[in-house]
């Protein structure tokens, strides 16, 4: 009796568990986030890459870099402050440089850098570095 109940529970439970398990993202891999001209020199913009907010920073020398816009403390979304030229997390006052380096506040590490490629005049985020 107990064995039958257990077998029934497993037979029904496994498909149910697999059914409610979150599915992998439909989109993955490299993602175009816009034309190079849309990112002027000295700007830092937030874009969405597969539902994930990403900061695209273009330095004075024209180099484009991408950082995850998710704070390494408790995963709040960070934003660029043009006034102070730094990246800030309003949740718990974490501060990063425009190069993604942790400057002050509770975050334990730098923002995660993502690899970027320029393809046919488009900025393409190709994934995390390392």
């Amino acid at each position, binding site marked *: 009796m107990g064995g039958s109940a257990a077998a029934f529970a497993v037979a029904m439970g496994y498909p149910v568990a697999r059914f409610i*398990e*979150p*599915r*992998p*993202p439909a989109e993955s891999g490299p993602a175009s986030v816009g034309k190079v001209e849309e990112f002027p020199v000295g700007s830092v913009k*937030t*874009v*969405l890459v*597969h*539902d*994930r*907010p990403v900061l695209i920073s273009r330095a004075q020398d024209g180099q484009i870099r991408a950082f995850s816009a998710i704070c390494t*403390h*408790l*995963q*709040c*979304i*960070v*934003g660029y402050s043009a006034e102070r030229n730094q990246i*800030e*997390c*309003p*949740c*718990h006052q974490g501060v990063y440089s425009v190069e993604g380096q942790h400057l002050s506040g*509770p*975050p*334990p590490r730098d923002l995660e850098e993502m690899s970027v490629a320029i393809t046919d005049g488009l900025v393409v985020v190709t994934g995390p570095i390392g």
Partner: protein
Amino acid sequence: MSTEERPRTGWLQDRLGWSELTASLSALRAPRRGFMFYLGGLTLFLFLVQVASGILLLLHYRPDAAVAFDSVEEIIGNIPYGSLIRGIHVWASDLFVACLIAHLFSVVIRRTYKAPHELAWLSGHAALVLGVGLAFTGAILPWSHKAYGQARIGSELARSVPIFGEAMRRFMRGGEEVSPSTLNHAFGFHVAVLPAALTLLVAAHGFFLYRKPAYVAEPGTKPVETIPLYPDFLVRQAVAWTGIIVVLMTLALFVDRPLGEAANPLAPTAAVRPPWYFLPFHQIVRSSPAELIGFNGPKFIVGAACGLGLVVIALPFVDPRGSKITTWAAWIMLLILALLAASALL
């Protein structure tokens, strides 16, 4: 009295077997004194209020990330009494969690978790977990920027849970990221899975208490003064329910729960404050150093809290006789939690 002369209600009473039903309920006993005994009934009542108001909200709410926020705005602004129904639902959720926590502490303080009440204790804990899950998923549904931030932070805190953390995070988000899938996942659990599971648990909890009543005095102690469950205890319980309705309506009518802005994954998360029942926990995590005794600070704290939670769940087995130290520990814990919540609010 002939059949023709009997009042019309007599027919219904006859079909329901009313006199037998009330006689069997009168035979059941409940304690005469003690506010704490009414907390379980209040929690059940607030759950029913949430079910009723939630069904009404469901008629206008649209569980789609593109329109969810607008539909809640419409409920508040354009649907007659929408603001009141939403207010009742939101405040009932807060009071429900407050009653669940107060009920838990009252059981620990009175030490009624001990044998033979292990099953009632364990089912009560499971109900607490589901109740908090119900509140958490409900907070996501408006898909406001605050709700989006709470989903991010809540699921990130869950990631620190030892062993199951990563799976819990994915499960709470409905994927790797907080996205429209998170809303769909939260909606399904909030309106179907969790209420159904909670209903079954509450029924099981009631059955366990029926089989092993919590008020029976221990051998050698003064007997507990009791009253019949029907009508005495149920009438008193109804008075408590009336009181909570007054509190609920006052809050829903006079204390606004602003919706804020629509969720925007591109905008920085505002200074999100988690729901009040997570405040002590959040306060510890946010002020913890990045590293603690060689471990990741927040992970260490969440792991320690989980360990403490397991000890509390196992209380009937760890402390089967109900030591007075447990009562003191519960009071001290309550004080610490209140101080942490207060410091988070300041």
